[in-house]
């Protein structure tokens, strides 16, 4: 009998470790927000992120007073850092949606203790992503021109342009992600409301929980709403990055004009997103002593998803090279040669292969998958790799286009970098605030993972 239990444990590892019951799970998660003193490390982390975020503030200020000329975007590389960073950030968001929506519909229980902050990560990543297209216009106060509305110009935006589809895809994505995250938070905010001692916190959480009392009717409606939102989010995992990829593949440029782009971009997005979830999870569960809720099993699963999606991305790289050769189109062949060997940016291509192709091969081995340290390192390498991927696609394709007379070079200015690094600070500052103010793990969903939550037949032992 012991052996059978071992095998069951191996197939279905427990998602909550340690001796937990309903009460202790609730205590543990809600105390981070309500009872425990803010750890000193939090101030350090938030302080650094907040200061780095000031780079974004100053760059934005300098940008609106001086115009986009402060960046290195210029012919022939008109699309540079802003779109690289936009695609990078928007890709990172995808893991959150995948975890919360698709894994919910597929009944994957391990999503439960990581979905909350993966969704928060999605929201903050989309916020960072959204800054780039808005700011790169140079006149962000006219950003509403992107929307179709009855304006005094008597014009609609160009609906045939993928950039227009981007506006719809990303704004839909941001809205649905926000709703999904918020609806999932309501029962937990109500828990915080009931447990808060401070009158103002009670009031704030009370307003946010919309009068949630946890009645059967509330739960019934909640479940329906949550399932509907999951259904809405599921196609978004595929559609948003497909449309982002169309920004490139609809163009005629060699290196962009490829049919493989949508699935290749979606896989890359999920790949990058899981890397970011791991980067956030691994320190979080140590600092807040949450190894019993976010177990090693979770990390292993995420490592496996990273390996799978990473291999799809590698297949994409291989196919790009294959298509260039098989097409026999001299421009395509030249582009690939230029990208890999002869061009001035050849190093970025091989760095990309090293970061995204070679590094994940370690995940085949149990030793690396089971080590949080190595997972963390690989995740950081992958995040850099996914940024390089966009750099390679955008810069090497643009800098050598059809006419040799218009060839050029691209090197980012200091403001390209401060803008990018600033958004990273902004992202982490938001994550720190979220960790401090809201339950980082879904309390009520983790409770359903406990053995007590299993419905047993009469007389059967718990």
């Amino acid at each position, binding site marked *: 009998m012991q052996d059978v239990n071992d095998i069951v444990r191996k197939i279905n590892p427990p998602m909550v470790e340690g001796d937990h019951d309903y009460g202790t799970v609730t205590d543990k998660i809600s105390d981070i927000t309500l009872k425990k003193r803010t750890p000193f490390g939090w101030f350090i982390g938030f302080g650094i992120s907040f200061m780095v975020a000031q780079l974004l503030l100053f760059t934005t200020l300098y940008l609106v007073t001086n115009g986009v000329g402060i960046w290195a975007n210029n012919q022939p590389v008109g699309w540079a850092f802003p779109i690289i960073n936009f695609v990078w950030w928007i890709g990172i968001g995808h893991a959150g949606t995948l975890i919360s929506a698709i894994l919910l519909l597929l009944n994957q229980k391990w999503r439960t203790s990581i979905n909350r902050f993966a969704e928060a990560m999605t929201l903050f990543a989309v916020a960072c992503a959204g800054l780039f297209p808005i700011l790169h216009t140079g006149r962000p106060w006219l950003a509403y021109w992107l929307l179709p509305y*009855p*304006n*005094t*110009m*008597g*014009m609609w935006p160009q609906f045939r342009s993928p950039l227009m589809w981007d506006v719809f895809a990303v704004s839909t994505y941001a809205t649905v992600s926000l709703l999904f995250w918020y609806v999932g938070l309501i029962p937990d905010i109500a828990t915080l*409301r009931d447990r808060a001692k401070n009158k103002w916190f*009670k*009031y704030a959480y*009370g307003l946010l929980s*919309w*009068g949630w009392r946890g009645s059967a009717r509330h739960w019934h409606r909640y479940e329906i709403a949550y399932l509907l939102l999951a259904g809405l989010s599921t196609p978004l995992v595929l559609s948003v990055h497909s449309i982002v990829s169309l920004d490139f593949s609809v163009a005629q440029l060699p290196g962009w004009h490829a049919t493989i782009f949508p699935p290749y971009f979606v896989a890359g997005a999920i790949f990058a997103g899981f890397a970011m979830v791991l980067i956030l999870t691994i320190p979080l569960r140590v600092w807040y002593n949450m190894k019993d809720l976010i177990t090693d099993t979770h990390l292993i699963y995420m490592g496996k998803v990273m390996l799978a999606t990473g291999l799809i991305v590698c297949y994409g790289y291989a196919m790009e090279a294959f298509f260039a050769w098989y097409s026999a189109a001299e421009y395509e062949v030249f582009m690939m040669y230029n990208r890999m060997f002869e061009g001035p940016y050849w190093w970025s291509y091989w760095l990309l292969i090293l970061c995204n192709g070679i590094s994940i091969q370690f995940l085949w081995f149990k030793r690396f998958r089971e080590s949080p340290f190595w997972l963390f390192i690989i995740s950081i390498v992958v995040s850099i790799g996914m940024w390089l991927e966009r750099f390679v696609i955008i810069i090497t394709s643009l800098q050598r286009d059809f006419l040799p007379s218009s060839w050029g070079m691209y090197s980012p200015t200091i403001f390209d970098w401060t803008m990018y690094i600033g958004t990273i600070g902004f992202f982490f500052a938001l994550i720190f605030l979220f960790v401090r103010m809201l339950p980082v793990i879904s309390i009520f969903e983790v409770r359903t993972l406990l053995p007590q939550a299993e419905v047993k037949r009469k007389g059967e032992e718990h």
Partner: protein
Amino acid sequence: MAQLFHRGANHVAKASMVAVVVLGGLVFFAYTQIARSSYLTNRYLERPQPVQFSHKHHVGDDGIDCRYCHTSVETAASAGMPPTQTCMNCHNQLWADSPYLEPVQSSFRENTPILWERVHDLPEFAYFNHSIHVAKGVGCSTCHGQIDNMPAVYQENTLQMEWCLSCHRNPEAFIRPKSEIYNMDWKDGNLTAEQRTELGKEYKLRSRELLTSCSTCHR
């Protein structure tokens, strides 16, 4: 434990959901009105000019043709502002001593132009040419209104892009015969739809695609 919120809070919560939609709609409606209002477009705003010049008197009462002063309207982008000499053609005899005409007299004496206030001010990024509009049958009053009734000239239309496009998308609805270009009393209803189509062919109006292409007006 005492209740955190009063019973009425439930109603407030429900009402707030409706209120967001209603308020959002109202704000949007207000936007559509304000964006086209004379506050933002300066429509109907009479501008004080250095000389109390009345188009109502000169055009309406005296019957002077538009082209007597705006000489280049048929040949150039700008309709042209008359030099003081044009005024003096009559006013060295008529009302020559009137104090109202002092700015004109002094301008003529000192050989400095009168600094008129521009009423119809198109933005620099819009390329506009009077001559092509006149050549293709757009009368003065179609855009400028009944100037012969304006003691002080004001902007009759919004001059917003949607207004330009309303004609560029369907020019036949606004054109008139060559002989009627300077007729201030012309009504668009003077021609039937068939006559308009015929007239459009006569004028060889370009295609909608060309008339509404970006670079037609933004060069």
